[in-house]
């Protein structure tokens, strides 16, 4: 009987020791977390004003950068127009006359990027179509044909654009000249 009581008491004490150990362990962890949180809160409080200043600088930086990007985006035209005309004039064979050179751009068409399953995922960049027309006179059609071949090698093409060149010729007039028209079209590739 005495031995049984001893064993029961011993087991109960062991249980209490175990429970106390678990409780102490938990309290220790809670205490550590509380200290850590206090420390973090102090650090946050100490750097709050500096952080606000950093965020303000960052917002201002983004706003200023957006303005500069906007100016860069303003120049949509992939050509430097004066260079284009000057190079075109240098390319012109001597025995072909330009009467008119014009350059236009059609309103940009929205292109849609395709997502999975063919669904339109997002709107692509809006690219205009560029059209250049040269009108003039030529005595020999071979010269016009040679000039068209030269234009096909001309560095019009820019990334994302397809080049097409077509010509039309009227009947030889009384002066023995063929009035012609050459159209160069740079259209965004789909």
């Amino acid at each position, binding site marked *: 009987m005495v031995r049984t009581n001893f064993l029961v008491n011993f087991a109960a004490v062991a249980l209490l020791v175990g429970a106390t150990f678990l409780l102490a362990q938990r309290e220790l962890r809670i205490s550590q977390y509380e200290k850590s949180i206090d420390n973090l809160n102090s650090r946050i409080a100490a*750097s709050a004003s500096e*952080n606000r200043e950093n965020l303000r600088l960052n917002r201002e930086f983004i706003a200023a950068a957006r303005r500069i990007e906007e100016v860069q985006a303003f120049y949509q035209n992939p050509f430097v127009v004066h260079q284009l005309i000057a190079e075109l004039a240098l390319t012109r064979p001597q025995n072909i006359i330009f009467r008119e050179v014009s350059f236009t751009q059609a309103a940009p068409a929205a292109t849609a990027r395709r997502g999975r399953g063919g669904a339109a995922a997002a709107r692509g960049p809006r690219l205009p179509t560029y059209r250049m027309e040269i009108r003039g006179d030529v005595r020999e059609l071979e010269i016009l044909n040679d000039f068209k071949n030269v234009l096909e090698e001309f560095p019009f093409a820019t990334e994302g654009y397809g080049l097409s060149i077509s010509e039309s010729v009227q009947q030889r007039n009384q002066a023995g000249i063929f009035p012609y028209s050459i159209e160069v079209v740079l259209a965004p590739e789909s």
Partner: protein
Amino acid sequence: MNTAAISTVLEKLKGRIPAVVCAILAVVAFVYTYARGAMEATLVESETALTSEINQIDANTRAAAELANQLETLNQSVESIEARLFQASARAINTNFFYQMEELADIRVAQVRQGSVIAPEGNREYAAIEYTLVAEGTFTDLVQFLYNLRTVNAFIEIRTFDIRGASGGGATRDAANLTLSCTIRVLAQKET
């Protein structure tokens, strides 16, 4: 019967009072430990959030090390840009701007027509003004004029142009008097 059973149990417990006390205390300790578990979970969550906030602040501080200098440079660029913008309301000044370019390229500006003001889209900052210009001169001078439009102290994009002989002359003969018609867009301040 019940009274006898209770008496028997109490009799047995008399010899095991420490065990009873310890068992009661152990149960209390377990319950308290369990209850404090919720508190610990909350503290862990708070600590994680605060650590993340501190990391973000540290990252901001690192990123901002050179930000002030960079921002100053950027602001100077923006000021320089904004000094070059047209004002839609200053129609006479704007028109005169193009007439003043006559001498630079030795051409005659025959017409300057201010068109519509294109308001900025979305959150953009700058508007644009469309102009139609007609100029006369030799081929070389007109190309020089187009070059000047590109390099002058304003943001100008040539949208369309047409060069043709004014009196049936060829469009690339320097001797001939040619007419240039072009539409341009000039970057302008947003109207408030």
